[in-house]
């Protein structure tokens, strides 16, 4: 009976694997045929496998879960009255000790792709920088005509090394979250032995495992150690990027192309200019409105039979005069007739203004 069950398991695992492979192939075919360039045609977006790669990334979560299911069956969970803790440990080991490795580390979108991958691309695209990796960056003094470039390459190699170290520390904390998650799962399961709330499905076990993993991760991710490793990893990435950009800027200058720093500086100056113009325009509008308000007030006084000379209206009133303050406090709808009059007056005297 036991042997029959084992054979059945093997057959089932083979079937499940075939099923997974089949629909993965199916998806890949759909992706290729969906391209407007057709299978085998040159795509402006890169090699034909790019779509497959993106699809595979999208489906990584389900592949991970499928692997987890098959691992659970392979580990002997549920087969006879054996030691469930031993079976769980077998499952944990069969998944390389990192059942959720992909969830932590395989988020690999275009912008957030693994920095190591970016580094590979950089070295492939810029072979000249590779020899820099061979320098003993701490001890070899740079000199001669290529001194500056040599120093830059050495700095880049050192920065990348620094990044690798911090990324390693970050990964070890993630690994710890995996391990502690498993320990928490065992505690949670042990608590269930006191009740009739037994777990009867792999999905139930998986959900409990996810809870345990998230709890363990949450505690580590809020720790001082994680904060430090995270910050240093991000900063080390920044230093690598900075040095790469310096090399690219030098290359652009050599080729007579506008560099990133030049374009950025242009953008900054344009923005500063825009702010200045807007500020001046607002101040000008403010003065105009103040003058017009004063003029309208004077005209009203004249109409009311007062003898105050109209010439005084030409003097620009203080923006926070009593009259202005009263206007500000009044609802817009109450001020509307005056505002319309001002707008009409402005159109007559200054032409149509910007909205």
């Amino acid at each position, binding site marked *: 009976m036991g042997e029959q069950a084992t054979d*059945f398991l093997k057959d*089932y695992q083979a079937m*499940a694997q075939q*099923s997974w492979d089949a*629909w993965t192939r*199916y*998806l890949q075919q*759909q992706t290729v045929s969906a391209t407007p360039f057709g299978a085998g045609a040159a795509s402006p977006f890169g090699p034909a496998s790019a779509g497959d790669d993106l699809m595979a990334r999208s489906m990584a*979560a*389900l592949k991970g*879960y*499928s692997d987890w*299911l098959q691992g659970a069956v392979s580990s002997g*969970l*549920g087969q006879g009255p054996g030691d*469930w803790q031993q079976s769980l440990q077998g499952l944990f080991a069969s998944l390389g000790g990192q059942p*959720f490795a992909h*969830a*932590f580390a*395989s*988020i690999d*979108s275009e*912008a*957030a792709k693994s920095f190591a991958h970016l580094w590979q691309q950089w070295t492939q695209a810029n072979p000249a920088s590779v020899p820099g990796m061979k320098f003993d960056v701490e001890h070899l003094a740079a000199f001669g005509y290529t001194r500056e470039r040599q120093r830059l390459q050495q700095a880049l190699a050192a920065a990348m090394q620094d990044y690798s170290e911090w990324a390693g520390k970050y990964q070890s904390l993630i690994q710890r979250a995996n391990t502690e998650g498993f320990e928490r799962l065992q505690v949670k*399961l042990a608590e269930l*032995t006191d009740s009739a709330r*037994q777990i*009867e*499905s*792999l*999905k139930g*076990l*998986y*959900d409990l495992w*996810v809870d345990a*993993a*998230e709890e363990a*991760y*949450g505690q580590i*991710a*809020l720790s001082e150690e994680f*904060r430090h490793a*995270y*910050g240093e990893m*991000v*900063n080390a990435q*920044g*230093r690598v990027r*900075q040095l790469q950009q310096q090399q690219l800027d030098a290359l652009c200058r050599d080729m007579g192309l506008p560099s990133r720093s030049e*374009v*950025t500086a242009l*953008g*900054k100056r344009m*923005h*500063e200019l825009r*702010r200045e113009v807007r500020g001046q325009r607002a101040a000008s509008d403010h003065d105009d409105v103040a003058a017009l308000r004063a003029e309208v007030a004077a005209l009203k006084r004249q109409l009311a039979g007062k003898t105050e000379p109209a010439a005084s209206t030409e003097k620009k009133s203080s923006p926070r005069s009593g009259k202005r303050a009263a206007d*500000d406090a009044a*609802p*817009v*709808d109450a001020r509307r007739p005056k505002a319309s009059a001002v707008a009409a007056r402005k159109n007559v005297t200054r032409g149509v203004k910007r909205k």
Partner: protein
Amino acid sequence: MYPPLRLDPAALMGEIAAFQRKLAAGMDNLKHQLEPEYANTPRELVYREDKLAVWRMKGQGKPTAKTPTLIVYALVNTVWMTDLQEDRSMVRNLLEQGEDIYLLDWGYPDAVDRWLTLDDYINGYLDRCVDAVRKHAGVAAINTLGICQGGTFSLCYAATHPEKVKNVITMVTPVDFQTPDNMLSSWSQQMDVDLFVDTMGNIPAELLNWVYLTLKPVRLNQQKYVGLVDILDNPKELQNFLRMERWIFDSPDQAGEAFREFIKEFYQQNKLIKGDLIIGGKPVDLGMITQPVLNIFAEQDHLVPPDASRALGRHVGSTDYTQLAFKGGHIGIYVSGRAQREVPPAIHQWLSTRD
């Protein structure tokens, strides 16, 4: 005394087989899905500047509220979360209650917007949007409904432009940026944000999305998609799921300078509650907010912990302060069935006594 696991081998086989069957069968449904549409409640363009737009949302009848409410969303993600789908639209719900709703859609910044500062966003764009709504509605002051970072912006705005804001509503809004359970804050503390922005320029949305996913990596990168398999054969549920995916990942990049300032001034230095925040030369003091304030937060919010929002009550100057705790998460507060029943009616009720 029971063993925690009661896993029957045959049942496990059945479970795995069912998963594979659902997955394989569901792929066809996934293949034929159209891009999910948002609720697209009828709207009228009121104001446009650069990439932003202010919309007046139109309900079945005329608003009964005298004072319009401007929804100010965060710069990350889009405002369409508030009008996601017909039966899960906070906007529609508020319109049905008789509120007069305007939406501020910030748009998608690109390299031209790299130098936009918080001053540009709050004292520039937001101020002009508020003016546009005031003018359109013919009122002196409006209500603001700020969401997440948009809530922080609207608090800064209400403190510095009190004459233009009648009532302040905040939803899932961070005020104290350094509560012990704030993971985003913890991770940002040791970041060299100057280096980060100098090398990245604008901050890519994909990078930020990756950061958000790593707050709960297993739940958000795997468990969620395992759950998807269960609804692959339900077209309506699948559309809802895909619509949410669209909203989550169709996000704007962040203007570099504004991001730099926000991380430094708010996350790293927590200046909003320390009272030494200055934006565009104007001191921002929450004590200057004397308008009525309704502060709504989510009890299971993993992005903005409840304590980060609750802090508003201790720092705001208003004597008319109301706090509402919602049983749900950062997203559920807009789209869950409970949210539809509880949140818009509570907002309407609160506003109606202060209109």
